[in-house]
């Protein structure tokens, strides 16, 4: 189906429309970070996993964080979309209650105990959400 121009738009229109239409960019996530989290409020949390919600559009880790006085606060950490990890062999048991994890992120704008999980690791520094190694890099595809 060939494009057929009805009439020649004026130059101003072309310039304006180009600017408006540009940046139909690859979308990163379901919504923008800055709508939900505050980059002026970085947090670093260390705690015990109480629940892992493998849900869409974002998975959420629930952790109990104990402060110096021993008081426990429950936090929720927002992650990406789990289906990507399921395809790499991560299972719902990969993150289980009782695991000790460290979260680097930013606090929610609404002031609640929620943060995004920019970096989530075990206490020894290993990343939490790695899939099976060798799962599909270019040149890595198993022969069919």
């Amino acid at each position, binding site marked *: 189906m060939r494009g057929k121009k009805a009439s020649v738009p004026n130059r101003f229109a072309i310039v304006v429309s180009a600017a408006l239409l540009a940046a139909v960019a690859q979308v990163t996530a379901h919504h923008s970070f800055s709508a939900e989290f505050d980059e002026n409020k970085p947090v670093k949390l260390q705690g015990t996993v109480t629940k892992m919600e*493998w849900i869409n559009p974002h998975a959420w880790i629930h952790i109990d964080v104990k402060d110096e006085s021993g008081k426990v606060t429950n936090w929720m950490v927002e992650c990406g979309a*789990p289906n990507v990890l*399921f395809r790499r062999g991560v*299972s*719902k048991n990969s993150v289980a209650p009782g695991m000790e994890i460290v979260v680097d992120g930013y606090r929610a704008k609404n002031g609640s105990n929620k943060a995004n999980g920019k970096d989530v690791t075990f206490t020894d520094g290993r990343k939490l959400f790695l899939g099976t190694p060798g799962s599909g890099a270019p040149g890595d595809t198993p022969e069919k």
Partner: protein
Amino acid sequence: MKVRCISLITGGAWLLFTLPALHAQAYRAPRGADGHADLSGIWQPLNTANWDLADHSPQAGPMWQTGAIGAEPAGQSVVEGGAIPYLPAALEEKKNNFASRRTNDPEAKCYMPGIPRANYMPYPFQIVQSPRGILFVYEYASANRLINMGKPVEPVSDTWMGTSNGHWEGDTLVIDVTGFNGLAWLDRAGDFASDKLHVVERFTRTDRDHLQYEATIEDPSVFSRPWKISMPLYRRVEKDAQLLEFKCVEFAEELLYGEYKKK
């Protein structure tokens, strides 16, 4: 005279024996492309099971402003053999669900209905029998599920619609569903199950325009024993019948997020 008598008696006996058999001769559904009974088409329930699986009398709706519209109609139970066998603690939870049903029913929030409820929502659904499996496409909330007809697969995670593994027993499609997240309800009356729910469904075409649907529901943390529901499903016979959309998120946003709206 004797011969005619004997013929009459023999003939009569033959009729007596074969007529019931002819009458009871099971309907044989036409074959689908997969060689099995053809269940394809658009189907819809005609009962009020979605209001309440048990017997129910008419009740007022949630808002007096809509008068009789939105009120609950009467309906007969689809539960075989009496009341739903709740464990005592679970029965308390059901009662709490009922009390808060206007706002807590996942259907009010336009959440996916789960199984078995998706099959008796008051919206049509379509069965598509393909070599890749049997697809159920529900008009309600764009829900759908693909029944795996090969070697059974394990659920990867807990979901709203569960993980469905199917096989044929003669002309009956049997579907084994597990891997639920325990968040769906079974009806608008607060009947529910947990993430330990296990449903075994049976779909049998009984004639050109009817399916018989049965589901055995088992959840040891909620019910004292497995129990069963059954109901007919009716074909949408209009020449141009097709599924439309019921994307109800827009109708549920005020309920879910109204308190966060700018005043």
